[in-house]
């Protein structure tokens, strides 16, 4: 049973943040998490259900200066197929490719994935490696107010973020990775995608003349929550291995053995 009294589908960001003022709002984006959770009674829908899918400012993937801006409503499929992402952020494509199923990728939004902050959220790891920032909008007084923070700060713990109830996540901004940047995402599972991650991990850094610096490691499932770390990790390369995939171009993979904090499931 819900306390639901209003359904609202704003068509502008101003309308949305105005509605969010009283904080008693459940936000509907892709719905792939909200639908089963609310039907099973694990999430109670609040007084207002606000569908943000009709707000144009929340969509789109664009290059703005030296940043890629991904709107909160971008679906996982849209992200992994976008030329900008494929060219500049292959580790994000890698994670998206291991996300659920095609049907869910077509509907699940980046914003939803971020705000759920599940340790098993696959997109979160590459975003942390890439030093992504989230932008939040609200209307504390009479007009639209935006502020941003690093994703690593945005996450507080499993399922917990710094988004207050009257804020809306509008987009994610990712700085274009520098020269020599490499990053990989790995998810442990017997299936290519459909498993919710039991252990997931990402590692990125700058590779120059065979040496990896500025290493960033992000743990997802199996750790204590998605978080990044400036890692002084004990690692040794096992050399580069060419692993040609059928029908795809060769990709170089550097294999690293890490100190794993994964708990045995």
């Amino acid at each position: 049973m819900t306390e639901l009294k209003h359904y609202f589908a704003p068509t502008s960001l101003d309308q949305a943040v105005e509605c969010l003022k009283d904080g008693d709002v459940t936000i509907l984006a892709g719905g792939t998490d909200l639908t089963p959770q609310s039907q099973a009674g694990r999430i109670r829908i609040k007084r207002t259900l606000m569908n943000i899918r009709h707000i144009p400012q929340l969509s789109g993937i664009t290059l703005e200066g030296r940043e890629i801006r991904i709107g909160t409503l971008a679906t996982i499929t849209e992200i992994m197929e976008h030329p900008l992402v494929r060219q500049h952020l292959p580790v994000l494509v890698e994670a998206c490719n291991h996300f659920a199923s095609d049907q869910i990728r077509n509907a699940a939004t980046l914003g939803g994935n971020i705000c759920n902050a599940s340790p098993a959220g696959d997109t979160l790891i590459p975003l942390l490696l890439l030093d992504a920032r989230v932008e939040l909008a609200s209307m504390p007084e009479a007009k639209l107010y935006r502020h941003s923070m690093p994703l690593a700060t945005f996450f507080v713990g499993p399922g917990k973020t710094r988004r207050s109830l009257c804020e809306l996540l509008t987009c994610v901004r990712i700085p274009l990775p520098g020269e020599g940047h490499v990053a990989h995402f790995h998810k442990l599972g017997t299936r290519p995608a459909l498993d919710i991650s039991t252990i997931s991990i990402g590692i990125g850094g700058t590779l120059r003349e065979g040496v990896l610096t500025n290493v960033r490691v992000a743990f997802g499932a199996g750790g204590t929550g998605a978080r990044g770390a400036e890692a002084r990790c004990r690692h040794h390369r096992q050399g580069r291995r060419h692993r040609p995939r059928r029908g795809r171009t060769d990709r170089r993979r550097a294999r690293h053995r890490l100190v794993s904090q994964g708990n045995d499931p």
Partner: protein
Amino acid sequence: MSLKHDIEFTLNGVKRQASVDVTMNTLAMLRDVIGLTGTKYGCGEGECGACTIQVDGVSLNSCLMFAVDCDGRELTTIEGLANDSKADALREAFVEHGAVQCGFCTPGMIMQADHLLHKHPHADAECVKRGIEGNLCRCTGYKKIVDAIVAAEDGQRTAP
């Protein structure tokens, strides 16, 4: 009493209206409000793909979509695809290749396969297997389903 909302959308090419419970999912709307039972309930959690439909040109699980979110959108269900001659080759391939046993997963499979072939008209077996990874089947072991989808792309599919 539960909150209702009126929506207007296009279903299988026909514009229509519906009055739906705001908390209802699209699968329940299709089956119980509109009365189209071709789309199946398999799990209600997006894990089995039996409820797959197409919305604005992409496939998704109708059990994971709020009915109110259909407002202003274009939906295609298996009933709509059954009347679409471009999908004939796919349907015939399923029949000819023995890809149907109990048939319960079949509508969802075909909806997903149709979408997959639109995006990847020359999908090979590996691409098809990844493409239907969100559709469970307990009867066939998937092999003939994959064969059918690969064969269909050789049929009379036209480019989107």
